[in-house]
């Protein structure tokens, strides 16, 4: 008597969670992009307007927000390259789990480097 289709569903595990992560980071990046085009457009209004709004971004809370945004972008970028490999590389589907762990390790390495540099610049006295 069959119980559950063990090992045949992709749901759960690396495949699904990378898909969930890709969706969530994608939506976050998209909404930031809308705001980012609007704030940059202030250069067309006046130098004072742009510099004032950008100045409001330069505080510790925003520095953490920027780090979170870059974390989302870097994950989306690396996992996107993994998706391309799954679709176009002959052995991509077979090694998708190993590629996800590679993505996560690279993501941690890049984010440690970025965080040290960005937070020391943004939080450092100036």
């Amino acid at each position, binding site marked *: 008597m069959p119980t559950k289709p063990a090992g045949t569903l992709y749901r759960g595990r690396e495949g699904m969670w990378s898909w969930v992560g890709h*969706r969530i980071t*994608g*939506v976050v*990046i*998209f909404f930031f*992009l*809308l705001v980012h*085009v*609007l704030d*940059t*457009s202030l*250069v*067309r209004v*006046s*130098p*004072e307007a*742009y*510099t004032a709004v*950008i*100045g409001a*971004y*330069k505080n510790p809370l925003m*520095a953490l927000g*920027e780090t979170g945004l*870059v974390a989302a*972008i870097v994950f989306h*970028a690396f996992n*996107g*390259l993994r*998706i*391309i490999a799954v*679709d*176009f590389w002959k052995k991509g589907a077979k090694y998708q789990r190993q590629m996800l762990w590679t993505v996560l390790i690279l993501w941690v390495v890049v984010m440690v480097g*970025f965080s040290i*540099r*960005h937070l020391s*610049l*943004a939080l450092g006295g*100036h």
Partner: protein
Amino acid sequence: MSATEIQSPRSAAKIGSNRIAPQYRRHGGSKGNFEMLAWLFMRLSGVVLVVLIFGHLAVNLLVGEGIHAIDFGFVAGKWADPFWQIWDLAMLWLAMLHGTNGVRTIINDYAEKDATRLWLKIVLYAATTAIIILGTMVIFTFDPCPVVNGVQLPGGFCPAP
């Protein structure tokens, strides 16, 4: 619990292959290969965006003083150079179209009523069109050397007054 109704995909799939027996073809027939082109665009634009956005972040946040250096003069200095105008223009268009297609897919996945999907997509496409037009006009109509109160703003890239 009521029986699960299995619906056909909401994105129009191309049914052009002769390997599919007629009784298994979905109604409507061929609607072109828009979905395949959208799938391909996501991958091609994705690769280019990795380069454009990583370069954007490195130059704006990691080099020199990082975020402290960003003000009007910083943006003006970049857009005085056609290289960065083209870079940012490509980033704007590719990222907006990539993101819009991603959100379109998510709307198709989660909004079950026809009217809800229609309205969400109308809002999405309106926002996308407005942002792309605005960003493009800002990049090309921007004056990096404005004269404020009769005074030329200083900048090494500006002609001497």
